[in-house]
């Protein structure tokens, strides 16, 4: 499938894209079936990616990053999806762009040296723990508490759906430092894996994204040093909201990348498979369906690029990013439905990658803020003003 290269990508971005593609085809794709089956990929892959600079794309050179821009990140997302699974890409991007970001942006110099530097090298893996059994979309409603005792904070509570909870060495944990203040009472903390009282209660079995480790965490009288606070007390909610823009843009980009691969696979299939004496592709309803999918996908891609451009230029991009995530997630799910349909019975069989895509992409309208929450943001921030 051929559409013109977007003008946002320079020769340098394309060179990086080619390297990632090559890496994925040699070091991920051949093993992905096995990792999906095992429910985990080897932690050593982080180190390998660290060596190649994949984990510090936009981080400052000072900490081992490359000081790249959002287009490098987008190329990275799109190419990771070439492995035909979304679990591994999600895990890696949670590490690079959804969790370690808090330490990079709001952490002290000591915290950056101690955590960010090894994270960029792939020596330490990072997770973000916000969602709780009783509060998902409603972040302000979290119940985990962090109480100051002299030079320490003591954490109590539980977290659920936490990506990287098996691999992570470091967790950025949201907790209430002031129960009466709602969203203004939330703070972010660094909790290391081996801290007494902190444990992985359960690894969760999921519909899809099997190569990503998702778990439930428990905090019982977890005592951490006071200097493990990230940024300022009471600012956690704002830090989380600010990072949502990157997170959701990446979610949109992964949906586009995965849908692209699925559509390409389906194009190939419909040009090979025959029914009623001709190729599936030569049945007009099939060809038109494919044309519709290609068009919708292109629209999702361009909206994602537009949102990325607004983000890259700085300033408020929440409306554009929410639109991109909403649209890309829903388009990708429609594409999953129709691509599977065009594969017939084979689409339902695990040996065909479309079966996995159908399961994996279902997370897209849920994770990182649901489609309903995206509509809330678009309506409230973008539409309800004079």
């Amino acid at each position, binding site marked *: 499938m051929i559409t013109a290269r977007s003008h946002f990508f320079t020769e340098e971005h394309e*060179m*990086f894209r080619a390297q990632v593609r090559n890496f994925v085809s040699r070091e991920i794709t051949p093993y992905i079936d096995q990792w999906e089956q095992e429910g985990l990929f080897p932690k050593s892959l982080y180190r390998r990616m660290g060596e190649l600079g*994949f984990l510090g794309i936009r981080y400052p050179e000072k900490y081992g990053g*490359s000081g*790249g821009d959002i287009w*490098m990140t987008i190329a990275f997302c799109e190419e990771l999806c070439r492995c035909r699974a979304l679990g591994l890409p999600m895990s890696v991007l949670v590490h690079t762009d959804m969790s370690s970001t808090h330490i990079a942006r709001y952490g002290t110099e000591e915290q950056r040296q101690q955590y960010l530097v090894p994270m960029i090298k792939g020596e330490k893996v990072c997770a973000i723990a916000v969602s709780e059994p009783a509060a998902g979309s409603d972040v302000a409603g979290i119940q985990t508490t962090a109480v100051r005792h002299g030079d320490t904070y003591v954490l109590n509570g539980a977290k659920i759906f936490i990506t990287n909870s098996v691999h992570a060495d470091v967790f950025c944990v949201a907790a209430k430092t002031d129960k009466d203040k709602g969203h203004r009472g939330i703070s972010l903390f660094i909790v290391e894996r081996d801290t007494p009282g902190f444990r992985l209660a359960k690894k969760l079995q999921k519909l899809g994204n099997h190569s990503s480790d998702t778990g439930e965490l428990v905090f019982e009288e977890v005592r951490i040093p006071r200097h493990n606070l990230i940024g300022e007390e009471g600012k956690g909610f704002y830090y989380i909201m600010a990072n949502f823009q990157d997170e959701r843009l990446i979610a949109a980009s992964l949906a586009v990348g995965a849908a692209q691969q699925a559509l390409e696979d389906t194009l190939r299939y419909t040009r090979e498979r025959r029914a009623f004496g001709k190729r599936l592709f030569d049945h007009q309803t099939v060809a038109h369906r494919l044309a519709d999918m290609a068009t919708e996908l292109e629209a999702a891609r361009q909206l994602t690029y537009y949102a990325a451009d607004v983000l890259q230029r700085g300033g408020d991009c929440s409306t554009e990013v929410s639109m991109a995530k909403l649209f890309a997630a829903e388009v990708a799910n429609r594409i999953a439905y129709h691509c599977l349909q065009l594969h017939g019975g084979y689409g339902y069989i695990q040996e065909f990658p479309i079966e996995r895509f159908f399961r994996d992409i279902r997370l897209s309208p849920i994770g990182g803020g649901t489609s309903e929450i995206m509509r809330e943001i678009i309506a409230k921030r973008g539409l309800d003003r004079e």
Partner: protein
Amino acid sequence: MKILVTVKRVPDPETTIRVKPDGSGIVTDNIKYVINPFDEIAIEEALRIKEKQGQGEVVLVSIGAKVASEQLRTGLAMGADRAILVLCDQELDSLGVARILAKIVEKEAPDLVLMGKQAIDDDANQAGQMLAALLNWPQATFASKVEFMDNYVQVVREVDGGLETVRFPLPGIITTDLRLNEPRYASLPGIMKARKKEIREIAVAELGIDTTPLLTVHKMDPPAKKAAGKKVESVQELVHLLHTEAKVI
């Protein structure tokens, strides 16, 4: 040690190549281009030699249109130090290429020239050999292992039916075979650093040599379409057909 590595821009081996209807060449629209895979191996080997010796310089050279700077930039991102692009819009044969390279060698005075054994577009497998002849330098083609001894280099060559080990004193030419090494990826920091590295452009006319091709491509034909296979009922039938129809046994 100073190593000169040749880099040719060729169509990505993974793209489908179509021959123009008039047989005058291939359709170049929508083709992706890459570094000739054998040249990529040559770059990797040069970088490894430099890393092992702890010093030296790796200089890339490409001949062709301005767009070839994309491939040079990738080589620089892998770790080469600088590059030279000989701008030349005219078609060249292997001898023309070798003559240009001989001039570059004269200017740069490298200790070693590392080249792909052939470019995967025209598969000529001549430029290295011709360059050696023009320079009157020793050459080791089809290298699968390269080692530096006190005052010579030892190369294991892949030849029909086995391996041959040869030695020669520097300067000299080595052309790479597939199994010499596995080229590295350009890391992201490498890509960022490559931005600042020099690609010096030289117009072919400046070199003052005759590059008129003695050899011209007369016609290209696509490979014959494979005929559909045939299912046989038994081993006996298979043996019979292999003998009577395929005539291979």
